[in-house]
């Protein structure tokens, strides 16, 4: 786990990022801060009490390998801006794919023209650019340009070869390499104006194996906010090898049991369990509206004394990390649950205002045409005291989950659901036979109370999680140590 200050100290090039972002989104389109703040003033009119503008440019590329060959590539570019006006809790958003002074004024007038009330021009109090002494959580790498198509294809082919060489039962490999380069700029009516350059590289692989008539597959991914040079050969080999092993193990799997039982959840990626069971319920929008099962419980003991869960948008090169959030606030590490006590919710600007709390750098949006919402960044549980073997050894009969997929939560009832795609029986304290994919379901607030042992092997996922809320998908990070959860419902067929 990277320490906040350390991560920022390692990247002292914030000014450079601002210059790059300004060049890409403002200078290139002959737009300056005067135009941005003029648009904000028009849009605010008499009715609005807050306004911001979000500009974003995206270039994305992906290469896909199947059947040993790379037959297709795709490239996508897009740019636009969204102008938002708040009136209390009421949010109005208009967007355009044309970034220029005329379009800014046109969209601002559109917003000013909606709703009732008289409008008069109101200029923002000050228009100074935010300069922060904080460093960067990631640098402005350009994963589309750091490597050409030929090298990217060579990388995919290497993965294919590694997988096939690992075991003769590997019958196909599907691998996708995606590179995204985003530039954003945010200006708020309170005078804040700032930008960010956000690289993202991700590699996804699915390995299919066959033995007799039985076919199984296992998939996984790695990625983060960096250029391709970050992956060593050794790392790639370990990543592919683990997926081949997971698929081969499934060939031997038997039907999973059904009913209530103890579940030991392995470290790392399985932190998606916390993301669903707890994380979404701590996002401030559902809390202030009373629709979250965790609403109104600040200061209450919601979990055992050994449970501490944080959201940290500053992890070095993390998939969920942001130098600033999509409302221009610096990201930070927020302790959500400390020693079992609920300490904080994740806030965007609107919820923070409504609840009289501080923004926490969790205001995120999928793009310029979507409204910001309080969203997670990198969310994980801190270490407990047990060796992972002790946690497993404590279970007489239950299941051990090494891989989860397909998580979903209903924050209102608190009920969440997962597919344990890679799982084993635990018999008399030992991991034994692999079992087929089975759904695991639980009640979030009950589940964190039912965490009875926490391992000392915290790992953060290496970068594959995407979270969808209100139709908006964004990259996030997850992590956890090995956990023992009592009384979860497992949906096998045996």
């Amino acid at each position, binding site marked *: 786990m990277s320490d906040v200050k350390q991560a920022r100290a390692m990247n002292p090039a914030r000014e450079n990022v601002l210059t790059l972002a300004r060049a890409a989104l403002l200078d290139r389109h002959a737009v300056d801060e005067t135009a941005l703040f003029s648009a904000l003033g028009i849009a605010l009119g008499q009715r609005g009490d807050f306004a911001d503008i979000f500009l974003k440019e995206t270039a994305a590329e992906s290469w896909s390998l199947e059947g040993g060959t790379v037959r297709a590539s795709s490239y996508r570019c897009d740019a636009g801006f969204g102008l938002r006006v708040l009136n209390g809790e009421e*949010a109005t958003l208009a967007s355009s794919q044309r970034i220029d002074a005329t379009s800014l004024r046109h969209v601002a007038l559109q917003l000013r023209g909606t709703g009732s009330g008289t409008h008069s021009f109101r200029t923002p109090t000050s228009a100074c650019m935010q300069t922060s002494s904080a460093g960067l959580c990631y640098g402005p790498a350009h994963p589309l340009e750091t490597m050409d198509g030929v090298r990217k294809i060579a990388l995919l082919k290497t993965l294919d070869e590694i997988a096939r060489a690992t075991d003769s039962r590997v019958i196909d490999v599907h691998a996708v390499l995606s590179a995204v380069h985003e530039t954003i700029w945010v200006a708020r009516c309170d005078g804040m104006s700032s930008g960010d350059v956000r690289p993202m590289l991700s590699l996804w692989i699915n390995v299919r194996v066959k033995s007799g008539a039985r076919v199984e597959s296992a998939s996984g991914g790695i990625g983060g906010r960096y250029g391709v040079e970050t992956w060593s050969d050794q790392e790639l080999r370990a990543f592919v090898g683990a997926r081949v092993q997971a698929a081969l193990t499934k060939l031997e799997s038997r039907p999973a049991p059904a009913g209530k039982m103890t579940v030991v959840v392995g470290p790392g990626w399985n932190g998606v369990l916390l993301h669903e069971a707890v994380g979404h319920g701590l996002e401030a929008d559902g809390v202030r509206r009373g629709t979250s*099962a965790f609403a109104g419980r600040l200061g209450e003991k919601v979990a055992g004394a050994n449970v501490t869960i944080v959201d940290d948008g500053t992890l070095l090169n993390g998939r969920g990390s942001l130098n600033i959030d999509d409302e221009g606030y610096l990201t930070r590490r927020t302790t959500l649950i400390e020693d079992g006590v609920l300490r904080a919710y994740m806030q965007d600007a609107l919820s923070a205002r409504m609840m009289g709390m501080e923004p926490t750098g969790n205001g995120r949006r999928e793009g310029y045409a979507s409204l910001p919402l309080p969203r997670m960044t990198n969310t994980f549980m801190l270490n407990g005291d047990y060796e992972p073997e002790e946690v497993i050894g404590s279970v007489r009969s239950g299941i051990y989950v090494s891989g989860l997929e397909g998580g979903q939560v209903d924050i209102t009832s608190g009920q969440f659901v997962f597919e344990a795609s890679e799982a084993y029986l635990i018999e008399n304290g030992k991991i034994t036979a692999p079992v087929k994919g089975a759904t695991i379901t639980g009640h979030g607030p009950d589940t964190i109370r039912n965490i009875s042992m926490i391992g000392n092997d915290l790992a953060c996922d290496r970068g594959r999680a995407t979270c969808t809320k209100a139709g908006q998908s964004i990259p996030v990070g997850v992590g956890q140590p090995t956990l023992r959860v009592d009384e979860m419902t497992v949906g096998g067929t045996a």
Partner: protein
Amino acid sequence: MEPGMTQWQSVAAELERSAGRAIEFAQRSGAEGTRVEVEAAESSTVTVTNRVQTERSFRGTFEMTITVVRDGKRAFAKSSDLSNDGLRKIVDAAIENTAATEPDPAAGLADSLELAKVFPELDLYHPLDWSLDDIGAHAQRAEDAALAHGPSIKASKGVTVRTVSGVSLLATSGGFSATTPWSAHSIACAPVAFGAGEKQIGFWSDTSRAFDDLATPEEVGAVAARRAMDALGATQIPTQLCPVLFEASASVELLSELVSLASGDALDRGGSFLKGGIDSPVFPPHVQLREDPFIRRGMASRCFDSDGIPGLRRAVVEDGRLKGYFLGLYAARRLQLTPTGNGYGPHNLELSSTQARPGDDFTAMMRRLHRGLVVTQMVGGGVNRLTGDFSRGAKGFWVENGEIRFPVGGITIASNLRQMFGGVQAIGSDAITRRWATSGSWLIDAMKIGGV
């Protein structure tokens, strides 16, 4: 706008010019085939949450997707910038990427014989010219109806009303060019019922091509509220094997599993147990599944797919046997089969049973279930398409003597899709349509329930 043209025709003319330029740039850069899809759309959305309009948004979008084939290799590029510079940029990106990829025998454009020749009027374009305030007032009616439905409904996660209209264009270097104007309107409502130490959310929605065809906000609000209230007091049931009745809104999700299994993408990638399954029995003989791409105002109606190939009015399942797949051009070529015009997915599908009687409404279906689980909603979990293994979270009701006894939640349902499809005992006459799927409730003989 040119005189005498409606707004969509004027937009369509502009898109045609952009597509023509993109094709010209690509062909001049060495492409042997170029396909361009453009979509221009305008949408207005209002979400009302506890009597506040928490989202009011309008957006106009352009997106062009260009596919080039060069030296037998294929690449895609997408952009919202339809200026000459923007078009050159994506053409260059696509052409450059073909230099790195490998030849693909399935890559080319459709043969002219495969292309749509007739374009029946599908009546898909009914734009709604309402202000955000008008749309918000409409959404508020649904929330008011939900809140008035019962004293336990004390909050809402929101009512969203959205109206979108636009023009889609497909053009190829082979001379195919067609524009389709379309609209879609939707309403979705999610009220929250408060009980003793618990909250339950209810959800209901509707979608239509013409706004007047949409369910009234009062109806959507009341149904959503009833679903939230009915779920109060939900408990787990013992782990057991029992028959399961899927409400129509849940059975359309099971139908979508069939479509995924029979789609070209899954078949081509070897990711479906239905590969090689044409003419094999998938359902019992009473089950029929028909596809019709040409239903007027249908949510999944279209004259042609992403390659210009028309869909078919056909039986996908006849007397329980699988008669066809859902194949776009590329997957069809890879599988050495004939494309079925499904490059954008399935068209309007309707599942029925030769044994269904008009009186087989949901109450009658519960009598047939007699004792077992009603599933109103499935959540999360997973389906293994290679093996058919099925395991998902669920909520619903426990039924005894054909009547609802109590709400159920926090359970899992598991089986294998082969057994589930093969175990469809009856299909209700209580059909609903969600996107491309129309189905009544399904009664399945046995599934494993995971509970206490």
